[in-house]
């Protein structure tokens, strides 16, 4: 029996949730019960293959998971996918893409304590959002918001963020979303 995380029908479902998350930033997604509680596992398994590069800054993955993900290990400055503990400060600059190739930029997966409820509240505006929406969460180091604002201030350059928690929830904040702490 293959673990659910590697089953292609489940990966298709996770992808459709990712599609929904990117289409409607701030909309909280909940993964299927059979998937691991830390949501980034399923997201990485769905997105990565041998052609992707990954940096696990805070050692959230176990060594045994790397061969299964197939992703190439890369430093923070060149990785196309970066997995971080969101409670730790943002202390680097990821790939932001170039003016002609803005898609060659990093996707950040930030593991936080809770999504959909928590002490921190963000107001979101931008494509995919009618007027505005709010997102509650807990466990995100405030430096990420300041850094992200810097990284995304020159559209089309920027980074796309996926926030994940340990109750199978995740939310997408693509580069076009304007964030405000409320």
């Amino acid at each position, binding site marked *: 029996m293959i673990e659910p995380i590697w089953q292609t029908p489940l990966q*298709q479902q996770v*992808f459709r949730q990712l*599609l929904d998350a990117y289409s409607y930033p701030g909309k909280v997604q909940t993964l299927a019960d059979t998937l691991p509680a830390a949501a980034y596992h399923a997201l990485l398994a769905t997105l990565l*293959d041998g052609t992707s590069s990954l940096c696990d800054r805070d050692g959230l993955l176990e060594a045994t998971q790397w061969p299964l993900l197939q992703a190439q290990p890369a430093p923070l400055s060149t990785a196309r996918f970066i997995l971080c503990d969101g409670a730790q400060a943002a202390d680097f600059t990821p790939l932001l893409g170039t003016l002609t190739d803005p*898609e060659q930029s990093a996707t950040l997966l930030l593991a936080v304590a809770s999504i959909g409820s928590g002490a921190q509240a963000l107001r979101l505006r931008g494509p*995919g959002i009618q007027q505005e929406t709010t997102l509650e969460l807990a466990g995100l180091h405030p430096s990420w918001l300041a850094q992200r604002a810097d990284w995304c201030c020159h559209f089309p350059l920027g980074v*796309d963020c996926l926030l994940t928690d340990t109750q199978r929830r995740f939310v997408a904040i*693509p*580069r*076009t979303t304007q964030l405000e702490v409320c």
Partner: protein
Amino acid sequence: MSTATDYPFGFLDSYAKKEVRRTVLKAIAIPGYQVPYSSREMPMGRGFGTGGLQLTLSLIGEGETLKVIDQGSDDSVNAVNLRHFIELTCPSINTTTRTQEATLIQSRHRIPEQPLREDQVLVLQVPYPDPLVIVEPSETRRKVMHGEADYSRLLVKLYEDLVHFKEITISHRYPTRINGHYVIDPSPIPRYDVPKLHQSPALLLFGAGREKKVYAVPPYTLAEPLVFDDVPFRTEDFTDRVSGERRACQRCGSRDSFLDEFSDPNTGGKVYQCSDSDYCTQQQEQAHGE
């Protein structure tokens, strides 16, 4: 002889799907930007909707309800062939012709008349993804122009039209600016469909298989056709110059749909009919129900 069951669900292997999926997410994150991808060989010629097909096959899952349309019709040759191929390679999906029942819609050259919802995704087949190709042959230079949102030469082209013809003569593939930056070729949809891109509740994806590009108009996003302040954007109005009335569909009588023009083989005169065959059928059903 190989059978359909020899292929994985959705025909494409998981590496191909993953690449398309990563590309689609980037396309949504950078609205209107043409994200390059390695368009796979499909068992049909490039230019027959392979870009849209690869998107559909990468998105589709068990229990999905799919609608495939070609120029508004569920029964024309491109739609029938693509639907048949998807049914063959995705055994556990349902297909429908009714727009409101579909969760995933692949379309060639039309956006359905019925308003789309948040739980639906529309995939459009694109022959020519780059609106700048008419003014700049080099892709390297076009990419710089797109990055800088420099569409001055495209506006000059539109201005030349106004000088020559007193009218912007683009009937379909009307250049449309997405979220205030990138200008897209919205695929050969008529002008009538361009306003449906603006603040659409549903995600709109564009796949160009031959040109190896994917782009997106996310939901609730600005989509403005390129125009001048003093020359507003016009869509087809279907007004009969003689009677002054808007023409009606000869089948269902609708006066608010996009019409195709046919010539009547008996009289030689012109007749008009809804381009969206599902909309037309549903209008007739409603009329009979009353």
